[in-house]
Every structure is written in structure tokens, then in C-alpha cells.
């Protein structure tokens, strides 16, 4: 029911939303919970295990009962707390965990079976027969229990991640937080004020409080106007700080678009990483329920929630309201309701010594012994100092006292301390470095106390920041003492007393846990699942451990708490991974020839982060293999052009450059003449091959190293390590120039002719030579190197000219019967020639294995040399690089067996690393590693691939199939 003239909602903006398909009206500023209560909807969900009818318990993010699914286009968001979700025009919400409907739920039958479903039931019952657990019991149980459901589709909505830095982070905008933020802002500090709610003010806007003689909400509004005008203050409403991490870093989840209809580019949520010099935690406190039989019916709510609905939203969730409490503070609920003209049936105070002076009946020493009403509360039965009684009531407010919100102070392993006088845990001092708790979260429950705490915390933070504290007057506000006598559960009564509403855990379950000897609080948690639901036990932890303490005869401090871990509220993975979906997963690196290749219809293949053309299809070609075969033949017979810019290029300079290369390469580079190129092999410190490539000597003290595409970063890191660890004082400097040059391979018997048309004259360059050339006014470098086995050149120009040169080279090649070739052809060409890639130097092979042990110079030391000489690194037991030739297809990854041997692991002779169909030799070829392979050339070996069902015989050969003497590439 909505009361006229009450609440802070915007009555000029009505909104229409649906719940379970039915249309309702609310106002801007309503949460789904307040709008449903205003429409007298009390039944909102079904419980996790017993499918008990449940309503709304709280008015905040700790809500354990009122969880719904929100539908929005393709999005279906489960377990949204109705107390957090704001209403907007077009909002569609749906109840969850019920079938066929919320009011009639077939699985409600679980509730009747409750005597059999107590804690530990599954563990004891479904042990036998063992295989039944996975196949039968678990699927059935999972189906019966549970909360919301997902759409089964990808979450393609927009999310955001961002960073923020500040001098002071204030978490919570109640009186303590506002005072701290205002004080620090006056001192000139950069302040971020984060508030979980859509509206700032905390209890000042949820309670009937007065500050400096004004209504609390007015005072807050005026202060917020001042704060908004300050450039050093950032207000972050709808932002929950979810975790405390090292170095003053906090995670925070902002609801950016969840409270409104979707708009292009508007994220649903933003996950913030906030780095703060100092932090004031003013997170407030959470009211505790009281355990009594059937205390979970719709209509039973927290007393403070009732006040929030009354003062924030002008909503009263019943016509005849009763209050049960164990403290003075909760009496305000009854007084506020009566002042608003609402019928308060009675106040039940569990204390025998409390005052009975109120404008309604007050029962002392009262304990509720039963409640009635299937889908909503209709009556309560209770005993009290004067006897027993039954009252007709449709709403019961309860208050078992307050738990300071200490969660963030536990995220770095702090353990909260028990304070007997308030019967609650408070943060341990220094639990999170540079964080000062203030106000209710520190156990200070009066408004004036919160202002004082907030001011003091600001002073602490400002002192640490080295800023003088401004002279601030404390606002005038109530300063009532907090008096409480703990009351955790109702003794000597039948019926289930719920502790954890979200996971259906009762006081009896906790006692059973103790009885079964799961007496540690951590064991009790696992045994009963108390505290493991979406609310993470915010409503039940302290009461549960009080019951456990009672059952085990220990005190509460001795029983201790379970560990509070981040995130403080449920946080969507989509927000934490914002931007990482699809192409956002990693940067994309594009070649200068990218567009030219795509223009020709070339499919792209990812090589590391690079996109390289796979092949260049011609009209009529139906498969990649047809195009690949044509491109291979083209290179062998005329000329092909390929973009090789992805290879790593490292400029190495200095008087010790040659000495440095001699250290990192197995072979010698100090003897390389200027203008020449040499193939080099690089080992890791453990003696295995790291990378290979060619290095050119451009000048006496300057080299240009080429690495493979895959290992470009790895080699750079290795060089840095070697330099810094072993020879930091040498006169050597190096820097990647991969991105500075676009480089193209021109390969084939007509490569020289092509270059002649480009350069004006055929290049006079010996095999493994390098020279500077110019293309018009563009400086360029020409290398004579070959990865195809044909006469080959690589021409490099500054990157900005890359696209123009590629298009020019391809056009020239095409006039000569040539053209571009892609990665597939490049791979076939190198296999035919027996050239290795990282398929072969995969990290477990040595120079000996690949037949290059002679490249490890005997005249000098190098990185990895000693380790490569260890026993087991050389010899006939090693698997050595060979070629395989067969008449049918082989597969990379297939294993090799001696013909006649049984095919099993013990007789494994090696494996295949690369395969191709060779159009040049009209044969299936492979590169492989075979035990003592070099001694087995000419023999036959069996190729078995169990995965792809291949079993063929192949001949072991030298790995170089094509032009063994190298006549063609030296031509």
C-alpha cells in the first residue's frame, strides 16, 4: 500500500513494469521490491531447497529471498535482488525456481519431505550404489534445487572496465561517510564517494532523522549539492565496493544501465579498479532477523526495512503490523508507522526489562512460538511475561540487533573482533592498511556518533595524506545509546526456525552439524551450506555461529567467524571481463599488405597476433589445396611474392655487438663480413633450441637479427635477460625494428628478373648477401636469402611504403606468370626443402636432434652450450630429425613404430611434426623425429594416428627432399 505524501520517489514520473507477465505501476525512484509492495504483492519467490513461499525481507543488497530474473532482449539475468533493481518503463521481471507458477509450485512437495532433507541428508543417503550419484542422484537434486536460470545464449551486451585514482575513497554515504567525504573535500583532497544505493544518504534518507533541525533527507540533499560543485569530489552512486586488495586498490561494481531501458553503447555495468591513498569505510550495518518457528513467511521483514519502505518509498507492506525486537532502536519502526497512521497491533520485546511505554500494546519477555499463512503472514502466536496470545497480523517487523558491515576489513585476512556490549563483530584495527572504519560498520550506531566517527576518520586520513584538517562543526543529531540483549533463537518450541533463508538452513541443521561433530564454524558452514547462497550469509552468519556456540558450549568469540571473501555482492563475470569478448581478447596485428590480400579473397590465418594470408584463390579453384599447389609450382617455376614482415627484426649496435652475438648464438658472428648474412641457431640456458634465423652484418658494429614470427618477443626478452644478467657493462644496445620495416620475399627462378624491372638492373648479390638499394627516392634493403629453396630475395622498405611495394611486386610477378603466395604454400616449400619452424624446434629438441650439432662452435662458449652437452642430450637414443615420404596422407602428431612391432607406448619410435602434399615431388612428405633416425634413412616406418585413424607405411629419408645441393638457391 502506498501512503500519500510520503517517500522520496518521483511521483510525477510513473513507470509501468511487469512481474510474471502482469503489468504494475510504480514511480521513478522505486525499487522493484518497493513497487511490488506498493501493489500489495507479497509473494515474490520460492526458496532454494524446500520451495517455500518467500517475500521481501530487506531493503538492501543483502536480500536473501526476493530474487528474480530480469528479461531484456536476449539477456536473461538470474538472481537479481528485487531490493536493488530499480523500476523503469518496460522492465520485465519474472519469479524463479517455481513450476508451474509462483503460487502453485509442484516442488513445494519438498517442504513436506523436510524431515528427510535436513543438513547432511545427501551425504548420508546417496552414497550407494556409488555410480548412481553422478548419473541419477546429482542431476535430480540439481534439478529440484536452485535459483534463477540462464538464457543459454552468449551475453553480448555492453560492459565496461575502468580505473580511478583518488586521495580518499569513502565507502558508503550515510552520516559517517558524508562527514568524512565533506571534511576531506574541504581539505582539498581528491575524494571518491561510492554508494551502493541509487540515492546517497544511508539511514539519513531511510529513517525519520533530523540533522541540524532539518529532515535528514533535506540536509543530505543540500550537502550533496555542495559536493557536486567541487571539482575534487566524484560521487559514485549505484557503485558497490566489492573487494579490498593490495596497495589501496579496491574493486567496485557500478550499475550503469541496469536501471533504465538499454541504449546504444551504454554499458549495463562497469567494473572499477579504484586506487586510493586512504580509505574510510562507512559501510553501515545490517539488521539481523530473529529465529522463531516459521519466521520465513512473506510479510515477515526486518524492522529497518519497514522504515526504509515507509520513508524512502511511502510504502507500507501491511495493514496490521507487529514488531518483535531485542533492542530499543527498533521501536522507531512502530512509532514511525503509528505517526503515519498505520495500525500497529503490538510490540513484542524479547527483553523482560524493557520499557512498555508506547502508544500500542507492548509485551515483554515475548517469544513467538508460531506463525500462520501459507502464501503470506496472517497471524502469530507468542508467549510473554503474562501468558500466551495469538494476534492477527499481516506484517511482522523483526530486529535481532545490528551486524556492522565488516566484510571489506576481512578481505586481507583480518579477523573481526567480538564486542559483548553490542553483541556484534567489529573490524580489527589495521585489518586493511590505510583503511579507517567509521560509524555503524565500526559499532557506532547513533547518528551523532556516526558524524563524530566520520570526522575523526577523515582527520586520520588527512594526517596520513599530509593535509591539514579543516575546522568543521559537527551537525546536531540524535545520540541515543544502543541497548540490546541478544536473542538468537526461540527455545523449547516445535517447528523450523530459519537462519539462512537463501539456502534453507534452520537452527536445527546447525545443531545437527554440532551433533555430528562438525563443530568448527568452517565445517558447520560446509555441512549445512549456511552462508553459501548469493547473500553469502549476510543475514545469517552471526546468528548461525551463535546457535553453534550454544550447541557446542563455547562462547561466540571462541567459535569465530567464517572468512569473508570478495566480492561483497554478486558480481557478473561479464563486468570483470568487459571488452574481452571476441576480437577484444587480444590486439590484432595487421600487415601493410592486409587490404591488398583481402582484395584478392585471401582467407586470413592467425599467426600469434598477426593476420597472414593463407592462400590466394583464383577463379575456379574449389579448395585451399588447389590454390596451394598452384602457388608452390609457381614459386618453383617462375616467381612468387610473400609478405614476411611478421618475422622479428632486431637492430643490434655497439663495439661489443659481435661479441654479444657470439654469446647468444651457437655459431660465430664476429667473423661475418660486412654485407653478408649468416644463419644462426640460439639455445636456451637449458641447452634446447630457442629460435633460429638469419642475421646480417650491416656495418662493423651493427647487425640486424631476424627471428621467427612466433618467437620474436621471446628472443627480445632472452637478449634483454642475457644482456642484463651477464654483460650489462658491454658496449651493446639493441631495439626491435619489426614494426619499422615492411619486408617481402621474392622467390623463384625469375626472382632476379623481377627485381631487374624494379631496380633498373639485376641485383649483383651473392647468396647470403645484403645491400642497400633505393626505389625511386625510397631507401630500401635487399637481402639474398631463401626459405623456399629457390633463388630468393627479401626486399625491405620503411613500413609506410609497404602496401605500395606489395601491390607493385605482385603486379610485376603476374606479368611473369607469377603472383602472391600464402602461408600454406610457404609451409609446403619449406618442408620440401627440409627447413625447420617452431613445429620442429618446439622447445624439447636440441641442436643434435635437428642435425645442427656442428653449428655449436667448439671454439667459443655460448648460452646453453654446457647444458646441451649433458648426458642424454645427444646420442642414438635421441629422436632425430628425418624426412618421411609416403604414398598416402600422413598427419602431424602421428606416432611412429617399427613395422612388425606391437603398436603401444613402449615401442614408440617418434612422431611427426609437419606434413604436406608436395606437388613438386608428387608425394606425401613429412618431417619427423625418429630414434636414431639419421642411421635409419632408407628404411620403412609405420605411421599411426589413433585419433584420425591413420595407419600407413612411410620411407625414412634425409629431411631435405628438394635440391639437396642447394644449386637453385645459389644460382
Amino acid at each position, binding site marked *: 500500500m502506498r501512503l500519500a505524501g510520503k517517500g522520496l520517489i518521483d511521483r510525477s514520473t510513473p513507470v509501468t513494469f511487469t512481474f510474471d507477465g502482469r503489468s504494475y505501476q510504480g514511480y521513478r525512484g522505486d525499487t522493484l521490491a518497493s513497487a511490488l509492495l506498493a501493489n500489495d504483492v507479497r509473494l515474490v519467490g520460492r526458496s532454494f531447497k524446500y520451495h517455500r513461499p518467500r517475500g521481501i525481507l530487506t531493503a538492501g543488497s543483502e536480500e536473501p529471498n526476493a530474487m528474480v530474473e530480469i528479461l531484456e532482449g536476449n539477456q536473461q539475468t538470474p538472481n537479481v535482488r528485487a531490493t536493488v533493481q530499480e523500476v523503469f518503463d518496460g522492465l520485465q521481471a519474472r519469479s524463479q525456481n517455481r513450476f508451474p507458477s509462483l503460487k502453485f509450485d509442484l516442488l513445494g512437495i519438498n517442504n513436506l519431505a523436510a524431515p528427510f532433507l535436513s543438513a547432511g541428508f545427501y551425504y548420508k543417503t546417496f552414497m550407494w550404489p556409488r555410480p548412481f550419484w553422478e548419473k541419477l542422484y546429482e542431476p535430480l537434486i540439481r534439478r529440484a534445487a536452485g535459483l534463477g536460470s540462464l538464457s543459454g545464449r552468449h551475453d553480448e551486451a*555492453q560492459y*565496461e*572496465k*575502468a*580505473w*580511478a*585514482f583518488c586521495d580518499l575513497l569513502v565507502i558508503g554515504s550515510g552520516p559517517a561517510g558524508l562527514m568524512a567525504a565533506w571534511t576531506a573535500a574541504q581539505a582539498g583532497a*581528491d575524494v571518491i564517494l561510492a554508494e551502493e544505493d541509487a540515492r546517497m544518504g544511508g539511514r539519513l534518507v531511510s529513517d525519520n532523522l533530523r540533522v541540524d533541525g532539518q529532515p535528514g533527507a533535506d540536509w543530505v540533499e543540500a550537502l550533496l549539492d555542495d559536493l557536486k560543485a567541487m571539482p575534487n569530489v566524484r560521487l559514485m552512486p549505484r557503485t558497490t565496493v566489492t573487494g579490498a586488495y593490495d596497495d589501496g586498490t579496491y574493486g567496485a561494481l557500478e550499475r*550503469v*544501465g541496469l536501471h533504465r531501458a538499454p*541504449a*546504444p*553503447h*551504454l*554499458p549495463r555495468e562497469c567494473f572499477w*579498479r579504484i586506487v586510493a591513498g586512504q580509505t574510510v569505510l562507512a559501510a553501515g550495518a545490517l539488521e539481523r532477523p530473529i529465529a522463531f518457528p516459521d519466521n520465513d513467511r512473506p510479510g515477515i521483514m526486518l524492522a529497518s526495512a519497514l522504515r526504509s519502505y515507509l520513508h524512502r518509498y511511502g510504502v507500507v507492506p501491511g495493514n496490521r503490523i507487529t514488531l518483535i525486537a531485542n533492542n530499543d532502536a527498533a521501536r522507531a519502526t512502530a512509532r514511525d508507522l503509528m505517526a503515519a497512521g498505520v495500525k500497529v497491533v503490538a510490540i513484542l520485546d524479547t527483553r523482560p526489562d524493557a520499557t512498555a511505554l508506547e502508544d500500542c500494546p507492548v509485551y515483554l519477555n515475548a517469544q513467538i512460538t508460531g506463525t500462520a499463512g501459507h502464501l503470506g503472514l496472517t497471524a502469530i502466536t507468542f508467549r510473554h511475561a503474562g501468558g500466551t496470545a495469538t494476534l492477527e497480523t499481516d506484517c511482522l517487523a523483526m530486529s535481532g540487533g545490528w551486524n556492522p558491515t565488516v566484510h571489506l576489513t576481512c578481505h586481507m585476512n583480518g579477523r573481526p573482533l567480538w564486542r559483548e556490549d553490542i553483541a556484534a563483530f567489529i573490524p580489527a584495527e589495521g585489518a586493511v592498511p590505510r583503511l579507517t572504519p567509521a560509524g555503524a560498520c565500526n559499532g557506532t550506531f547513533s547518528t551523532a556518533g556516526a558524524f563524530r566517527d566520520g570526522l575523526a576518520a577523515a582527520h586520520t586520513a588527512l594526517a596520513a595524506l599530509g593535509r591539514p584538517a579543516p575546522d568543521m562543526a559537527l551537525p546536531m543529531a540524535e545520540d541515543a545509546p544502543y541497548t540490546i540483549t541478544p536473542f538468537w533463537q526461540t527455545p523449547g518450541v516445535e517447528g523450523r526456525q530459519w537462519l539462512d533463508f537463501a539456502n534453507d538452513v534452520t537452527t536445527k541443521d546447525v545443531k545437527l552439524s554440532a551433533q555430528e561433530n562438525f563443530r568448527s564454524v568452517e565445517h558447520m558452514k560446509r555441512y549445512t551450506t549456511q552462508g553459501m547462497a548469493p547473500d553469502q550469509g549476510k543475514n545469517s552468519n552471526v546468528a548461525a555461529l551463535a546457535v553453534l556456540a550454544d550447541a557446542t558450549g563455547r562462547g561466540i568469540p571462541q567459535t569465530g567467524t567464517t572468512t569473508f571473501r570478495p566480492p561483497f555482492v554478486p558480481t557478473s563475470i561479464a563486468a570483470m571481463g568487459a*571488452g574481452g569478448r571476441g576480437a577484444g581478447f*587480444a*590486439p*590484432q*596485428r*595487421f*600487415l*601493410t599488405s592486409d587490404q591488398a590480400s583481402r582484395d584478392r579473397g585471401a582467407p586470413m590465418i592467425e599467426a600469434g*597476433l*598477426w593476420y597472414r594470408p593463407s592462400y590466394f584463390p583464383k577463379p575456379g579453384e574449389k579448395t585451399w589445396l588447389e590454390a596451394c599447389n598452384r602457388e608452390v609450382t609457381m614459386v618453383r617455376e617462375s616467381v612468387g611474392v610473400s609478405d614476411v614482415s611478421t618475422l622479428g627484426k632486431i*637492430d643490434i*649496435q*655497439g*663495439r661489443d655487438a659481435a661479441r654479444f652475438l657470439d654469446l647468444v648464438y651457437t655459431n660465430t658472428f664476429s667473423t661475418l663480413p660486412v654485407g653478408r648474412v649468416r644463419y644462426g641457431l640460439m639455445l636456451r640456458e637449458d641447452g634446447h633450441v630457442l629460435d633460429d634465423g638469419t642475421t646480417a652484418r650491416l656495418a662493423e658494429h651493427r647487425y640486424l637479427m631476424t627471428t621467427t614470427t612466433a618467437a620474436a618477443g621471446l628472443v627480445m626478452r632472452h637478449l634483454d635477460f642475457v644482456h642484463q644478467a651477464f654483460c*650489462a*657493462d*658491454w*658496449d651493446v*644496445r*639493441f*631495439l*626491435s*625494428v*619489426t*614494426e*619499422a*620495416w615492411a619486408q617481402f620475399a621474392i622467390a623463384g627462378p625469375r626472382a632476379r628478373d623481377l627485381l631487374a624491372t*624494379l*631496380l*633498373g638492373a639485376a641485383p649483383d648479390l651473392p647468396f647470403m648477401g645484403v645491400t642497400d638499394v633505393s*626505389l*625511386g*627516392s*625510397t631507401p630500401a634493403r635487399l637481402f639474398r636469402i631463401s626459405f623456399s629453396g629457390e633463388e630468393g630475395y627479401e626486399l625491405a*622498405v*620503411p*613500413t*609506410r*611504403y*609497404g*602496401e*605500395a*611495394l606489395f601491390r*607493385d611486386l605482385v603486379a610485376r610477378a603476374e606479368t611473369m606468370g607469377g603472383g602472391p603466395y600464402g602461408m600454406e604454400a610457404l609451409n609446403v616449400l619449406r618442408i620440401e626443402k627440409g627447413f625447420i619452424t617452431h613445429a620442429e624446434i618446439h622447445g624439447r629438441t636440441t641442436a643434435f636432434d635437428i642435425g645442427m650439432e656442428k653449428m655449436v662452435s667448439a671454439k667459443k662458449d655460448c648460452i646453453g652450450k654446457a647444458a646441451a652437452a649433458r648426458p642424454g642430450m645427444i646420442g642414438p637414443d635421441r629422436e632425430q630429425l628425418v624426412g618421411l615420404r609416403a604414398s598416402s596422407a600422413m598427419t602431424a602428431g602421428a606416432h611412429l613404430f617399427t613395422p612388425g612391432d606391437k603398436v603401444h607406448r613402449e615401442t614408440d619410435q617418434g612422431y611427426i611434426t609437419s606434413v604436406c602434399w608436395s606437388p613438386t615431388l608428387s608425394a606425401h612428405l613429412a618431417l619427423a623425429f625418429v630414434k636414431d633416425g639419421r642411421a635409419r634413412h632408407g628404411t620403412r616406418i609405420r605411421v599411426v594416428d589413433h585419433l584420425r585413424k591413420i595407419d600407413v607405411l612411410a620411407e625414412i629419408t634425409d629431411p631435405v627432399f628438394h635440391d639437396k645441393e642447394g644449386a637453385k638457391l645459389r644460382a
Partner: protein
Amino acid sequence: MPELIAKSALAGHAPVTRLQTTLAEGSAAPITSVAPYPGRMDRVNAALAPLGLAFPAPNGQTRQGAARLIWTGRDQAFLIGAPAPDGLADHAALTDQTDGWAILTLTGPVAEATLMRPVPLDLRLGAFPPLRTVRAPLNHMQAILTRTAPDAFEIMVFRSMARTAWGELTEALEVLAARAQTA
């Protein structure tokens, strides 16, 4: 002999403006890496003196007219906007980097807020004043980030990654614009 046409890293990308803040391709040429050899900083500084520059401190830069020298790493700085002076090559390794980097500029009132999406550094004016230069991650990319004015930044990324950087900064601008519309 052909005359090759030069193309910048982001050729074809028109500037994007949201909330009076503009993302555009910048230019800086030539760029030369200057890496002094051990123990020769004095002679490097002497060689730089005619340009009015000195080797910068970490995260800093020195500038004179159009020429500037920005710190880019340990024993390394990029000389931008002027050719290397005579004699410098004797004491420092010089490497042409002109074509290796894509340059993006971000100018306007929400430039800092835009960068606070992909960059995990404190870019508040007090902590990161004009002429400060850092090597910074831009999401998964490594970048060289310089504040050129209170509301202007220059972002250098590997040239091959220019499109990703452009896309991610454009997206951050779009999101801020969408947020502003709903505020």
C-alpha cells in the same frame, strides 16, 4: 623505377569527436631511438646540446621548439621532430623508429576519462602533468603515453596494432558519450 606511395598507419580513419573530445591520427617524424652506450651520458648530452636538448630523466622529456627527446625505457629515449645531431652516433646507438609507431592524439575535456578505461595509471593532472611520458599498457598493448597539455594526450602504439588501439579508444569515447546522455 617506381615512386612508392606512403600510407600512414591509420590512413582512412577520420577523426572521431564525442563530448568535444577528438581522437585523431597524429604525426611525428622523424623518430630516432637514442640509446647511450655505458658511461657516455656526458658526451651524449654534449652532442645533443646544439638541439637544445638533454637526455631526459625516466618518465620525462626535454624539448626545444619542434624537437623533443622523450624517455622510452632504460638507457633509451626517442628523438622526435629533428634529425640526430652530428657526433651522437659515436656515443649512442641510433635506430630509426619513424615507421614503427602509430600515433594517436586525444584532445578535449574527457580525454583523461577516456584513457582511464584502458590505462591503469594515475593520470590526474597533479600526478601526470603535461610533458610527462610513460610506457603504459593500453589494455593488452604496450604504449608510450605523453600528456601534451592539460586536456591533450599523445599515444604511440606498435604500428601493426593501430586499428585495435583506435577501436578501443573510440569505444571508450562512445561509452562516455552514452553515459553523459543518460546522466
